[in-house]
């Protein structure tokens, strides 16, 4: 399962946001393996790192490469096949049904087999009965699973999760941790979180951030 080449390689990354420097010369390599956690208090720069790595924020200096390809220079289509992102507030499209949310990107990309994959994913995520509902008719947990299906249907090599347990109760949170471990079998999961209990139940390795830099890296027990 372990590859020689890093899946994600961030070198000397500097990111500004709203005139303030948030990430300061950060370097990080993630190889294919168990779910990977990015820990840190709020304001430590972990979400900014995630957005910059996903190509959603301009970077001031440095590079982000996924499987050797520079994220900043990729066409959005190509990027979406390498990197997926499940937002903290899910950002489902409110005018589309759950099914349409999942199928929008693959149908625009004319991906073959996307429909059957979407059907399988929604079944697996236990949202197949909600296909015709609009986001405002779904619970938080259901929305999250639609958002996960929406990202997974593009079969990205890395799937980022931004604070996935923030809005969930403890039972749903446990279910989610199991789900992330299962998802990690098909794609590398990277979780940004400040919820130690949640991270402990799914990600055995990661980094801890502080002030826009990496404070510690390695096995979870070592960085917690």
């Amino acid at each position: 399962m372990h590859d020689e080449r890093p899946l994600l390689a961030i070198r000397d990354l500097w990111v500004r946001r709203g005139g303030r420097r948030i990430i300061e010369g950060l370097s990080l390599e993630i190889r294919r393996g168990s779910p990977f956690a990015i820990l840190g208090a709020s304001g430590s720069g972990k979400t900014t790192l995630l957005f910059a790595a996903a190509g959603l924020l301009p970077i001031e200096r440095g590079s982000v490469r996924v499987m050797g390809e520079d994220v900043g220079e990729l066409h959005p289509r190509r990027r979406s096949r390498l990197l997926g992102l499940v937002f903290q507030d899910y950002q489902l499209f409110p005018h589309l049904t759950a099914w349409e949310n999942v199928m929008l990107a693959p149908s625009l990309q004319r991906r073959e087999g996307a429909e059957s994959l979407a059907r399988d994913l929604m079944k697996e995520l236990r949202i197949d009965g909600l296909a015709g509902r609009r986001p405002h008719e779904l619970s938080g947990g259901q929305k999250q699973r639609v958002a996960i299906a929406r990202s997974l249907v593009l079969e990205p090599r890395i799937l980022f999760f931004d604070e996935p347990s923030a809005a969930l109760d403890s039972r749903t949170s446990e279910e989610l941790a199991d789900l992330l471990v299962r998802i990690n079998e098909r794609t590398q999961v990277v979780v940004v979180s400040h919820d130690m209990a949640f991270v402990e139940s799914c990600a055995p390795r990661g980094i801890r951030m502080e002030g826009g830099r990496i404070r510690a890296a390695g096995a979870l027990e070592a960085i917690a």
Partner: protein
Amino acid sequence: MRTGIPRPRPLHSRTGGRKIRLFATGLVLASIVASLASPTRAERAELRVGLTGAYPPFNYVEPSGRLSGFDVDVAKELCAAIRRECVFEVLQWDGILSALLARRIDVVIGSMAVTPQRAAQVRFTRPYYESGAQLFTRPGAGPEDAPGFRVGVTLGTTYGEVARKRFPSAEIRTYKGDTAALQDLQAGRLDAIVTDRLVGFHMNERYGAGLVARREPLFRESMAIPVHPDDERLLAELNRALDELLGSARYGELFRRYFGDGTGAGVVPEGEGDFSWAGSLRLLLRALGRTLHVSALGILLGIALAIVLAFLLLALPRPLARAVAFYVDFVRSTPFLIQLFTLYFGLPAIGLDLGTFTAAVVAIGIHSSSYLGEIVKVAYQSIPSGQRAASRSLGLTFREEIRHVIGPQMLPHLTTPSLNTLVATIKDSAIVSVISVHELTMQAQQLISASFRPMELYLLTAVLYFAITYPLLFAGRRLERRYRAKGLLHA
């Protein structure tokens, strides 16, 4: 007596210098008002006759849609005499000489008084009738020099000036139209009105207005036919034909048909200009179609401009966006009428002639875009930035993002305000009648001036506007409820 134009349309008088023409002065010099008429080139055998169709009994549109009146009858006699076919062009009074000078029409047979100012621009035939300003009182009114004697005159005519000079102790009241003044006279709120002598006679003859002509006319004037200064041959032909007509019994017949023997004791000619609801409704519906046409095209242009404005407001750097915002505020803070006049009368001065219909559409487009632009901008801003981030993370291109994510979410925010703007536009489109766009309000006024039924016809017109605008408002509300139910709109 001009009837039924209680709007500040400067049509009230046919006499030179009797009106304040705010906007016409410059344009007469520019002389390219053009496109007042549809720019069809006349064939040799046609005589294009300009008139307003809103000056009964001289020229007016019957409920059947047919042009009638003394001028029209005279024109037909003259056309027959010079073997040309009369083609009537209904124009607004203000631009009628410009249309003549631009050769959009060949003659004006519309009760135009000969004045030195006009004679300097065009050639006049010999006069074909005489009239003048006349004091008409209600029966039993006291002497003019009695204290508190009230005289009504129409705004924008020189009747007020004349009345003030001749009756210094009287109270002079101004009205937007002759109808309003006549109604006040009949209601006892006025003792007298000053208006055209023959118009007053006709009002008595046709409608039993009960006007009593008192004293000699305040002044007299001669009505003649202007032609282009280079049209020597036509002028000679018309003069010959007029000589013949005025000397004939036919002329006396025509005159008596409209003005009786000048005492107001005549009888209503049978079958002439009879009021008909069916005919009126048909004309009003046709005009409503034009109102919708000009409004719909205007609002479509407005939406297109609004999208451009919203894009500029959102995308330009701060100082440039401020300049755009200032432009939007400027358009919002100036009257639609002035914008319309600037486009229609102002642009020809720099060589750009839009024509009536286009000018009206462009004016509506510009005006409505200033409101719609803000609506589009707010609709865009109401969409969370996360939606754009989500689109990009899913690999949508900018165009796909706008089309499939941003656009559909803006729609609920746009629909109701846009429908409201459309309703406002349809109502405001009545203003474009001032540049001779023959829309619903203008049609109503023509019918009223021919039939003297302001109450019924204005009510009918209001109902027609309502029949169009109410469903739009209703649809807007329903859509809003639907969007709310779908979770696409928040309170």
